């Protein structure tokens, strides 16, 4: 970023190439909409361009970038335009295209391990989306973006202990959801 601030445009290309994928995934999990995630990601990089002159090497660049992205995600979530309820016709797997309705109709729960894992993923995804926003953003920053707790604290603007506490809450809720699925799977078997 310092090189780009001095006028090296290729340095910014390196930034985009390096951070495009993790920042997109974080935004996508946060806003839960692919189109809006693209817009927010583009806006994030544009903010980086505009704020390049003000960038000081006092904090990690990743922290600064995720702070911008997180603020944009919060704004987008508050607008709520694209927030959708879980649709039975919506694809649940990005790579497969199968829907929750398909899995419910065929009644193949516990038929084989792959199906169980798929359902487990769906449940897990729903559980993550059901987390409170303050826990979800920390969970995403930790698991998806792989930021450390002190960096998350800077991005979110809370103390590191608060970050760890929220993370612990999120993990416990996800564990409960996972236990329910296991109970359901055992009952089905």
């Amino acid at each position, binding site marked *: 970023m310092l090189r*780009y*601030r*001095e*006028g090296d*445009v290729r340095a*910014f*290309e390196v930034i*985009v190439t390096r951070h*495009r*994928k*993790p920042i*997109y*995934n974080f935004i*996508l*999990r946060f806003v839960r909409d*692919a189109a809006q995630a*693209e817009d927010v*990601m*583009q806006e994030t*990089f*544009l903010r980086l*361009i*505009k704020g*390049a*002159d003000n960038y000081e090497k006092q904090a990690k660049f990743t922290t600064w970038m995720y702070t911008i992205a997180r603020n944009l995600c919060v704004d987008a979530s508050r607008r709520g335009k694209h927030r959708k309820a879980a649709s039975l016709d919506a694809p649940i797997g*990005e*790579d497969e295209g199968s829907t929750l309705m398909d899995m419910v109709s065929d009644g193949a729960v516990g038929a084989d391990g792959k199906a169980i*894992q798929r359902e*487990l*993923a*769906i449940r*897990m*995804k729903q559980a*993550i989306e059901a987390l409170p926003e303050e826990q979800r953003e920390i*969970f*995403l920053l*930790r*698991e*998806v973006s792989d930021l*450390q*707790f002190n960096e998350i604290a800077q991005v979110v603007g809370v103390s590191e*202990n*608060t970050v*760890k*506490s*929220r*993370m*612990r*809450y999120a*993990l416990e809720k*996800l*564990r409960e959801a*996972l236990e329910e699925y296991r109970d359901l799977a055992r009952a089905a078997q």
Partner: protein
Amino acid sequence: MSEQTQNTPSAPCDALLDYAYGELEGAAKEAFEQHLAECEKCKRELEAFGKVRGAARAALPLLDPPAAATGALHAQLLHAAAQRKPSRATTGKLLSFPRRVMQHPGLLAAASLMVIGGALGLNWSKGHLFMPAAERTPAMAEPAKVDLPKGATTAPVVAAAPAATPATPAPALDETTTLEGSLAKDKAADTKVLLDVPKMSAPMKVRHAAPPKEPEFEAKPAKNADSAGELDLRQPADPNSFGAVTGAGGAAKKEAPAARGRYKSGQGDVMNYVTDGKAAEKTTAPAEEAPAPYRNEAPAAAAPAPPPAPKPAPPATRSQVQTVAPNAGYAAPEVKQQKADSWQQPVQSERQVMPEPQAAESVQSAAPPPARKHSGKKSAAPAARDDNGIGATDDARKAFLEAAKSNNCSEVIRIYSDQTRTKRVWATPDEDAEFTRCVSQARREQQSIDNAEQKRASKAKKAAKPAAADAPAQAAPPPAKSNSAF
């Protein structure tokens, strides 16, 4: 209860998350591992969190951005990045504010207004708002103001002074050039010099004014930039000298060292009367531009000291110098007003504006060399002026001749001055000669009066100091009077 207190287990258990996410290092990691071996709760939580994390990673795989959007997005971002200007670190922070001002139209307009307003305010405070000093004609400036000796009579003399031309040395005049010729020449000029005729002790002759004399007067500095070239000529040390000077800026300072009175910049035409008892000095530059109208000016208006013109005045002197702009449409200011900053048109009753052909004619008549003689064309000019609405010309001419015959010099001078100020070409050569004779006579009379006063003063001093009675009379010279210049 806060989140922190709710989830605050025992101190070693606080590091569970750090350990689970690999953020513990060194001794802290070893210490927690020892604690983990002993704490079943931490073991269960660590195992559960590991399963959740595995499930979460399976549920949230890292996805690539859509390929269709990536290319365009990438290109747009790179385009935006390329259009960004270099940072302040490259251009320097010193110019950041001016650059910001220049880039913002509103700030630029505000800055421009500030600069223009500041300049106007500065000019306003200096009194130069309307016109630069260099563009102002001399006649727009403050009219000449001359300190006059007691009992001075007024003898206005017209001199030429092209206002817009820079100061040029006046052409040398022949020593034998008479005042008569100079007066006639001055009529065609653009600057009017009102010169009070002082007492004369010798026939006036025109001398070349170019050789600078040692100034005997104290020249006041100009009041401001507007009055550049305006001199205040103080009382000369020589009591016999008198005169008024018009000239080009400060060049006239040395051309009229003995003159007393206020100098008005004539810029090019210098008319100087200096009579030190034997000679009068006058230098006139050729008038190249169209002459300005002459304004009839009441002699008494110039200063409170002089007596009214019609009255026979004592042979004291009064000098007035006034320049008139060469612009024919411009009105020379009133002497009463003392300041002539106004651009308003003159009152026609106060001034007779000469038509352009007549002005050209007047210039022609002034063009001949200094020793020129008045031509018949010049003599015919007054008749033409009489047709110009000046009905009292004949009467004035008759009165002038009568006064000349009766040797009433003060009346001659008064009529001559009035008429020459009123009309551009009024006097015939004979009348000019009569006027010159009367001026010389008046000066001689004043000279004799001054000599008598000096003698009386010397005697009074001797009488007042009996101790110094034995001393020679020449030991106590009479002090120079400050107000009796002539």
